[in-house]
């Protein structure tokens, strides 16, 4: 419920009959009480950590304290359902690797963590007194007025209402009792406003910022698409390999046997020979097709071997050199491989080069692949669709493509993709 929602709700005549004021009171009561507990807990933790810091043991504890906001914020986000029933999205990202250290590293880097810590400190030392005072006034005052008459009747002489007035007559006490519901109804308005304000503050600090929300969604949906695309490529490749390719081989074998049985030199033998040649051509085409979809060597051996294989097929002699710490994520290997293939195709088609070089290396979270040739240069990323397509392909995995190709050459094409090598156990 935003500010407009609250204003609208307060103006409606049936406001007092809705559950809204009661939910607001419940919200403030719970946040007030949890604020007190939080305050005590934080003070204790700070004192303990401070004392232990003298012997250095407390330093990690102090560091961990910075993450306390993450836990408390989760509770506050859950509580935000109380005043108006809306849910608040978690602003944090899911770590890309399992394990505590990956989680901690990610949390320290996220701005949301520090906003949450700020809110937690605010809740612990400023907000809870306000919460409790407002609830106490809104509910406590009418309750005392209501209690005046029964207490006077019990005591018989006099009763102190709110420690302010001495009331002796049952008539006055009765009037106060009648005034209580009116006061309660009036208090419902400021109570609801305060609760809504507090909820708005919590939502502002604890929900994903606009940028976080959008970029987070975009990045994860794009990553999902890339992975799905990659999986689909492999599925098609596998289906063709296990299906059509096997059948064609079996067909070719049957034709070959039939040819042995046919009388040598007969028209039948000639036809069988032709049929077998066609089957062979179909097999060769299918093999090229499958290799274009997803080469098996890329799955089996990774980028260096797959690029060496692509170099084998290039009409221009290509030297391939890679220095990688291990296997890279499939989407990265695939993007790198197809970039190299496209680059080598360009070298063969346009550059007039007599030699090319593919050099790959990995350092500081960045895979760099250089494809250079001794051709005539003049390659323009803005001009050719090939280079634009290549840049798009690399951009999908957050990579970048740069081309240095002065007229007269030589051309250097560089692909850079940020990534983390897979652990050796997965590549083995």
């Amino acid at each position, binding site marked *: 419920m935003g500010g407009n929602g609250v204003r609208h709700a307060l103006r409606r005549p049936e406001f007092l009959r809705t559950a809204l004021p009661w939910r607001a009171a419940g919200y403030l009561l719970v946040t007030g009480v949890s604020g007190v507990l939080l305050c005590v807990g934080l003070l204790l933790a700070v004192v303990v950590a401070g004392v232990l810091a003298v012997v250095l043991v407390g330093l990690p504890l102090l560091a961990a304290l910075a993450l306390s906001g993450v836990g408390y914020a989760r509770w506050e986000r859950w509580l935000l359902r109380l005043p108006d029933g809306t849910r608040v999205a978690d602003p944090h990202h899911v770590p890309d690797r399992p394990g505590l250290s990956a989680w901690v590293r990610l949390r320290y880097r996220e701005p949301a963590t520090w906003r949450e810590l700020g809110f937690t400190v605010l809740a612990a030392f400023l907000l809870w007194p306000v919460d409790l005072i407002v609830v106490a006034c809104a509910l406590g005052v009418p309750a005392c007025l209501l209690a005046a008459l029964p207490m006077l009747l019990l005591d018989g002489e006099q009763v102190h209402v709110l420690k302010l007035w001495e009331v002796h007559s049952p008539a006055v006490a009765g009037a106060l009792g009648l005034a209580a519901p009116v006061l309660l109804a009036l208090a419902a308005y400021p109570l609801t406003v305060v609760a809504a304000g507090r909820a708005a503050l919590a939502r502002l600090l604890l929900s994903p910022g606009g940028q976080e929300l959008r970029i987070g969604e975009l990045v994860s949906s794009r990553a999902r698409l890339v992975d799905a695309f990659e999986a689909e490529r492999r599925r098609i490749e596998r289906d063709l390999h296990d299906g059509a390719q*096997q059948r064609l081989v079996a067909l070719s074998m049957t034709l*070959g*046997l039939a040819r042995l049985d046919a009388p040598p030199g007969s028209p039948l033998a000639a036809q069988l020979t032709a049929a077998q040649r066609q089957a062979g051509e179909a097999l060769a085409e299918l093999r090229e097709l499958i290799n274009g979809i997803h080469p*098996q*060597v890329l799955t089996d*051996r990774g980028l260096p071997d797959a690029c060496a*294989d692509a170099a*084998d097929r290039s009409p221009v002699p*290509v030297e391939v050199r890679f220095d990688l710490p291990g296997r890279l994520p499939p989407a990265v290997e695939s993007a790198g491989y197809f970039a190299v293939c496209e680059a080598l195709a360009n070298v063969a088609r346009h550059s007039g080069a007599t030699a090319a070089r593919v050099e790959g290396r990995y350092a500081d979270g960045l895979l760099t692949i250089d494809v250079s040739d001794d051709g005539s240069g003049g390659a323009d990323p803005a001009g050719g669709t090939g280079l634009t397509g290549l840049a798009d392909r690399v951009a999908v995995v957050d990579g970048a493509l740069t081309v240095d190709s002065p007229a007269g050459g030589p051309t250097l094409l560089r692909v850079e993709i940020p990534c983390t090598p897979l652990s050796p156990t997965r590549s083995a």
Partner: protein
Amino acid sequence: MHPTEPDPLRIVLAEDGVLLREGLIGLLARFGHRVVAAVGDADALHAAVDTHTPDLVITDVRMPPGQTDEGLRAAVALRERRPGLPVLVLSQYVQRSYAADMLDSGDGSGVGYLLKDRIGQIDDFLTAVATVAAGGTVVDPEVVRQLLRRRRDPLERLTPREREVLALMAEGRSNAAICRELVVSEAAVSKHIGNILMKLDLPPAEETHRRVMAVLEFLRA
């Protein structure tokens, strides 16, 4: 070269595609060979070889459970355990690195890397089977053709004719077969081979098969 009367071989076959497996068993049986075990994955291949000690292993590259190059890795591992075991790898891929792995295993003799397309050329296939079982080396002509398109060290020093001879050596041809193919005298072939071995820096040695070393050099280039 008609494989009319080959020595009957006891063969262990590893191929997960049922169609091809049954076809191969029939084909080999028709020409007098016996498939003593037909298996569908790498573990079963190891077990079958231990049980039957075959004359030849024929294996697919891609096999369960991983559906990656497990057949090839199993072949290399088998050759490490039993250096003399002849292994013929059937593949759908024209890949130098796969073929090079095979030749690198053991002393490089008694290995073959053939495209599955070649099975249909019954004569060629049976010749390859016999060659590998007899300790020869066979690399698929398609892989050889791809390699020939690249001209770099150390093959640069070879003349075009010598490269042709080397390519035929890689395909597992004997000197006699090479001189038939190129229509030259056997003495000329011997001279070419001598030049190739010299240019590739492979002096005569007791312990290594120089022909295999030359083919390996060719694959690595």
